[in-house]
């Protein structure tokens, strides 16, 4: 499906799907994001990202236009930045980077089950790295010197092998959540497609019956 060959109805459909799913992504970020943060549950960021992955990958399934995820992310990020009366540079940046990563992954791998799983896993692993990136932007590259210093001090107290196991376990947990979210996104897209197909068939049949009876 090349964008240059797209008919006007198809282009319109793509745009509206992007707009609607971008709004939905923004709504989830504003409502669920704030709720999860307020509840102070562990791994709230990972849980939110997993839900977001389901939203935008389903949106992508129904709008194959290149840059669709990036646009949805742009909408969600802009909605998020004005949602709370405070500086939310971190989440704004996180949404845009997540959208960019997902867009690149889908462009490279295409829209299929494998690409959905890999995208889910990559994005969840990125959530571990994101605080380091955003803090690097706000505090400067010297924050990494401080982190290195802290790590050196911690390794004197905790065995480095144990620290490695803890870190690996944490990454593995994120990979599993990412895998599940990618799988749910794919299955959900297929289920929604089937449902819409049924609605369309029913509506065509109703139209036919109406015309026939007339």
């Amino acid at each position, binding site marked *: 499906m090349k964008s240059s060959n797209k008919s006007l*109805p198809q282009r319109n459909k793509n745009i509206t*799907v992007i707009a609607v*799913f971008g709004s939905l992504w923004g709504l989830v970020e504003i409502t669920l994001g704030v709720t999860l943060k307020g509840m102070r549950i562990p791994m709230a960021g990972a849980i939110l990202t997993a839900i977001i992955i389901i939203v935008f990958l389903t949106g992508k399934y129904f709008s194959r236009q290149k840059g669709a995820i990036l646009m949805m992310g742009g909408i969600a990020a802009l*909605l998020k930045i004005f949602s709370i009366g405070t500086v939310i*540079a971190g989440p704004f940046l996180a949404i845009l980077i997540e959208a960019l990563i997902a867009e690149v992954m889908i462009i490279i791998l295409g829209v299929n089950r494998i690409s959905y799983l890999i995208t889910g896993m990559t994005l969840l692993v990125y959530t571990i790295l994101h605080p380091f990136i955003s803090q690097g932007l706000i505090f400067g590259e010297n924050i990494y010197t401080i982190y290195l210093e802290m790590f050196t001090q911690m390794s004197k107290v905790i065995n480095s092998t144990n620290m490695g196991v803890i870190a690996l376990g944490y990454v593995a947990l994120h990979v599993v959540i990412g895998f599940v979210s990618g799988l749910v996104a794919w299955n959900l897209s297929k289920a*929604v497609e089937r449902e819409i197909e049924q609605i369309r068939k029913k509506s065509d049949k109703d139209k036919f019956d109406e015309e026939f009876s007339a």
Partner: protein
Amino acid sequence: MKKYVAIFFAYLCIAISVNFNNQFWLVPAAFVSMAFLNWRVFRIILKWKLLLFLGILVFCTPIFSSQKDAVFMGISYSRNVFEISVVMAYRSLIILMALKYFTQKISVQEIARSLSKLKLLGFGQVFELSLTTLPEVKKITVDCLDEYKISHPFSVFKDTFEWLVKLLVRILVYADTISLNKINQGE
């Protein structure tokens, strides 16, 4: 370029150029000028969580550093770590102030208008459309949320999945009606 955009970029430049030698005059100058521009932005830097983090960064990390090369009131600390911590703290405060100033000045509608002018891959048009669809998407989601129920404790995932299918179908049907309207209006 609008005045507040120029001010925002100027503050970002100040934040990047702060070092331990120029911080004695550059940081007070930035704070005083911001007080004249919009004193309300200081609320963002008076949050206890941020101040606690900066306090730990500036006062604790030099003490717990592995290479201590200076002594203050009998407490040995790392001068290098202290200097970079101070610069980092000032840099973060200036960036947060600049971001707060910028987000207080600009509105979503203004961003939508600016994006439309830029014609950035049609993003302006999509963003404007998303602002129009947002209330309806919210309504569909809230209405659908009222219908969410778990039939059995063991079927939480199945019920949630079915509910999600229902929600997304409604949202896609809504998207379809908008695109049909757009075509009927000749875009």
